[in-house]
Each structure stands twice: as C-alpha cells, then as structure tokens.
C-alpha cells in the first residue's frame, strides 16, 4: 500500500468511527447517571430509519437529523420511565428497547429499502488545516458531523468533570442516596441523561443511513450499538478515551472493508467476524487489566428507591 492508500484508510477510519462515537457518548452519559441502557442498537436503528425516511420525504437532511434525535430520545424516554419511575430491570428493559427498535425500524422502513439518497452532508474542508500534507486528508476533509462528534465528546468531558451539573450527574451515578440528601433530584437527572443519550444514539444511527451508507437497510447498524456499549467499558466511562476507542473500532471496520475489496485470500465470512472478535478481545483485555469495576459508576443499573435509603 502506498501512502495515499494509507491516508484514505485512515480517513475512512474516522468516518466509520463517527456513528459509534455518537452512540457511545450517549450511552456513557446515561451510565454516568446510573442508568444502563442496552437499547443502543434499537435506538440507532430507529434513528437511522427515521432520519432516512424524513430526509427522503422533506428533501432536507437537517430535518431528517431532527427526526432521528426525536426518535432516539423518545425511545430512551420509555426506558427511563420503566427503569427510573417504575424501577424495572434495566438489562431487560434495554433488551426490550433493542427488539422493539429493530422491529419498529423494519416496519417503518419497509418501503424505503435500497432507494437512492440524493441529499446528505457534503464534505466541509477546513481552511488551511485541510491543506496540510496527509493530515489534512485524514482529519480535516470530512462532513460537519465528524467534527461535531469530536467537539461533543470533548464538551461532555468538560461537562462531567468541570461543571456543577457534571458533579451532580456523577454523584447520582455513584451514590444516589448521598446525592438525594444534598437536594439533587435523582430521577430528573437520570431521565435527562438517559433521554440525551438516546438522542445521540439516534444521531449515530442517522449518520449511518444519511452519510456513511447512505441508504436504508433492515438491521443496517449490524451490532454497532452493542459495540458502542462495549466501547463505554473500554473508555472507562471517560468521553475523551471514547474518541480513541471509536476510531479503533472504526479502523477495524475500515480495514475489514478494504481487505474485502482487495480480494484477499480469506473468505469474506471470516472477515465479517473480525469486528466482533476484536470487540470481544478488547473487552476482555480491558476488563482483566483494570482493577475490578474501577471506573464503573457504583450505582450503575441499580434502581433508586427513596423509601429504602
């Protein structure tokens, strides 16, 4: 491979990592508040379907993006209702969300399979930076959502560690009893974080159907929602580490795709396993290396019951 092929591969890595970054950032926020939402895959699918359908019908991809945000957010609101207000099991509710979202997106998108997409986000070359040799092609000739995803992750780091809201979110995730005692509204913070997380998952899904693919296919997220959940663990619940992780997984995906088109002498079915095997490997290594549960919010996936404090 010559140097241009490498820069193309790295640029593809950034694009492939972007939807995972959106979804992982959203899940990270929810988990920081103590709510585990395994419905990321379902919320991404609904975001992808709604984003595509609304864009095709309105001719405006920004409206499509809003629909994806609303779709992901509404689904997360169901999860919040079930797990925060009704204290239902967070694992099972998340699975329900994934099954529901997979079904709903297939139901809504039935007549949109494989139709062409003529709108979408154009590449926005950053002045000066995009002219840098090699680096420009890798980092600075992308669509606006790529830049936004990185800014979002950095902003989320700032929010969580440098603001009083961040302190409140983290304390609700670590010790809701103590947070409640100092007057923080535990339920309200959990609702807000979960819903915001769902909106970001929807955005990640729409990025796939509007920019990355760009088309609609049933179950087109192909496990990326689950990879995003794994990524939160990889990131040790830190948004800046999530950026690196997202590009690691994006790199695996881009490389798999590249190897397939290069006609390498390995069955494409084995190549298709590659991202999932890497996810398993990364999760195992990260979990074994860190001290048990270091980084995980202490009250993650535990319902808060005021009466029992």
């Amino acid at each position, binding site marked *: 491979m010559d140097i241009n092929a490498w820069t193309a591969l790295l640029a593809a890595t950034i694009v492939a990592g972007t939807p995972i970054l959106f979804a992982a950032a959203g899940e990270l926020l929810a988990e920081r508040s103590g709510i585990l939402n395994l419905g990321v895959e379902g919320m991404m699918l609904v975001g992808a379907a709604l984003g595509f359908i609304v864009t095709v019908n309105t001719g405006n991809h920004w409206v499509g993006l809003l629909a994806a945000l609303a779709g992901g957010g509404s689904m997360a609101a169901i999860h919040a209702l*079930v797990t925060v207000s009704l204290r239902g099991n967070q694992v099972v509710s998340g699975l*329900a969300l994934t099954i*529901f979202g997979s079904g*709903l997106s297939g139901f809504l998108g039935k007549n949109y399979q494989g139709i062409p997409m003529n709108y979408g986000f154009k590449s926005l070359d950053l002045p000066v930076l995009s002219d840098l040799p090699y680096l420009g092609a890798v980092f600075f000739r992308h669509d606006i959502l790529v830049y936004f995803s990185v800014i979002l992750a950095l902003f989320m780091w700032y929010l969580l560690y440098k603001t009083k809201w961040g302190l409140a979110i983290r304390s609700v995730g670590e010790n809701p009893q103590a947070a409640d005692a100092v007057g923080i509204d535990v339920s309200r913070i959990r609702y807000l974080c979960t819903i915001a997380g769902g909106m970001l998952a929807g955005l990640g899904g729409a990025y796939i159907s509007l920019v990355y693919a760009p088309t609609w296919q049933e179950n087109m997220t192909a496990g990326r929602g*689950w990879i995003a959940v794994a990524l939160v663990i990889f990131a040790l619940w830190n948004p800046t580490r999530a950026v690196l992780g997202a590009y690691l997984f994006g790199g695996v995906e881009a490389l798999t795709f590249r190897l397939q088109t290069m006609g390498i002498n390995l069955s494409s*079915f084995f190549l298709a396993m590659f991202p999932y*095997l890497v996810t398993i490997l990364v*999760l*195992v290594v990260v*979990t074994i290396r860190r001290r048990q549960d270091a980084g995980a919010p202490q009250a993650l996936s535990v319902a808060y019951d005021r009466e029992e404090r």
Partner: protein
Amino acid sequence: MAKIKLIRREKESPLARVLVPVTSVLMAFAVGWIILALAGHNPVLVYQKLYNGALGSSYAVSETMVKAIPLMVAGLAVSLAFKMKLWNIGAEGQIYMGALAASWIALNLGQSSGPWLVIPLMMIAAFAAGACWGLVPGVLKAYWQVNETIITLMLNYVAISWVDYLVFGPWKDPNSMGFPLTPIFAPAAQLPTWGDSRVHLGLILAMVIAIIFYLSIQYTRWGYEVRVMGESSAAARYAGMNVTKNIMLVMLISGGIAGIAGMIEVSGITHRLQQGISPGYGYTAIIVAWLARLNPLAIIMVAFLFGALLVGGFAVQIVGVSFSITQVLQGTVLFFLLAGEIFINYKVVLAHKEVL
C-alpha cells in the same frame, strides 16, 4: 392533594403475578393497533389475518407448534442463566452452533448409520457446540467479571457468519442451484414427525427438558444454590457456595440447551443446514422466558403464544404489513411486563401529602 405512593409488599402478590403478564399481552396488542392505524393499515384486518394464520385451521395450529418448539427449548436455556442473573443473550448464536455441529454429524454419519446412533450423536454434538459458545463468556465472567451480555451478543454474529461460510462454501449442496444450503440429511438423521404435520419429536424433548429443569431447580441442592446465587452472589459466597464454578456450569448448560434447539430445528424441520436457520428464536426466547417469569412449565405455554405470533407474522405480509410488526409487539409486551412488575412487588396507594 393526593399523591401516589408505593409500599413494598412483604410477599409477591399472586393475583398480580397472573394478571400482569396477561394484561401486558393485551396492552401490547392495543399499542400495535395504534401503530398499525397510524401507518395507514386496517388493524382489524391485520389482526384477523394474524389470528387466522396462526390458529385459524388445524394446519395453522400445527405450524404454530412447529415454531413454538425451538422457542420452548431456547426459552428454557436462557431462563436457567437468567435465574442466576447471568444475561445470556447469546442463545441465537448457540442455536446456530448447535445446528452446525448436528449437521456435521448428519452429513458424515447419516448415510452409514441407523437413527438410534445418529440422532443421539447429533444431540450430543449440538449440546457440546452450544455449551462451548456459552462456556467462553461463562469463564470470562467467572474469573474476570467480563461483561457476559456483550460477549454473548458478539458471539451471535460470529456463529452466524460461520454457518454462512459453510453453507455458501465447503458444505454447499452441488445441486442446490446456487442456494446456500447443504444436501438434505439422510432419513436416519431426521426426527420423526406427528402424522402429516411438521410437528416433530422435539416437542417431547422440550417437555422433558422443562420437567428436568423444574425438578432440579425446585428440589435439588444445586437448584437451591442457583436460586440463592441469583438473589445475591455475596450471600452465596458467604454460605460457602462455589459461585465461580456455578457461573461456568450454568452458562455451559444454558448454551448446551440452546444448542439442542438448533439441532431439533435442522433435524426436525429443515433437514439440512441453511442460511438463516433461526429467524431470531434466540431473542424471542428472552421474552418468552421473562413473560413466563422464568418458570419452566410456564415457558412451554408462553412459547405457544409467541410461536403463534411468528406464524401470524408471516400471514400478515399478504396485506402488506412488514413481518417486523411481530418484533414491535414482542418489545412492547416486555415493556408492559417490566412496568407491571411494580404491581407485583409494591402496593400502590393514594396518600395525602399532608399525611406524609
């Protein structure tokens, strides 16, 4: 001013335990009604098709039973893991691995040996393959607390790709005209069926597994340990139970039973390995298990309901509704079930704010 207040019950309410699942199913159909109506379909017509497709004739009922069998077996598989709060959502992959291993036996020994050898060997191979697929996340969980939910889910994709590789490649029937299928199994590798229908011996097998499961959970020391560990692994460790060993054992058995579900599907229904051998049985099984409140005998009954939903789901495609509507209904049932659980564990009372 009145305010809703929740008081934890001393014991689960037995009435709510029955009413909540039933109401959940009804409410899910009500939500489905609204979604269908909003999408411009005629809900009455769609539900009529659904009902007729699933239960409207003796053929329909037998097809519902055919779909219920793998759901029973896979439902039993995941509920064993769920009892220990091990979130095995990898039944789908374990089904594929079981089907793969059983097919390997059938394709290699089916011609030369009798059913009394081939069928048990297929079962053993399927159990072993599914057990491996469950044991890997089990070991990772037991020794290093690696999140089993994600590992089991990731392994689903690996298993499906593996089966795809075989049926598109080395195992493909040369006479399949390009379709991704293996050659058809010899009669010795096929489960006997009931009369003219496709209902096969797997039904009896599912019931046997359910009974063994029920008895061993309810009446053995090991079953007691599994229940205690599900409540609190700290308490179980304190009482001297070997939690590490049991995590691996339960994941192994859970995966193995799901593997059997894959075996009965290839041996009883398709008589060959093919692409998409399971249309998501492993995921539907999670809902079956939860709706049955992890009770093995209830799983048998609940599986019929979801078998009916799958068969009916194929029928509604005639009136232009996507098969995905069945998944929408499944997810919705689960939401109502979780939401309703609060009535099982809590008493809901209206309290006046002044009193508080």
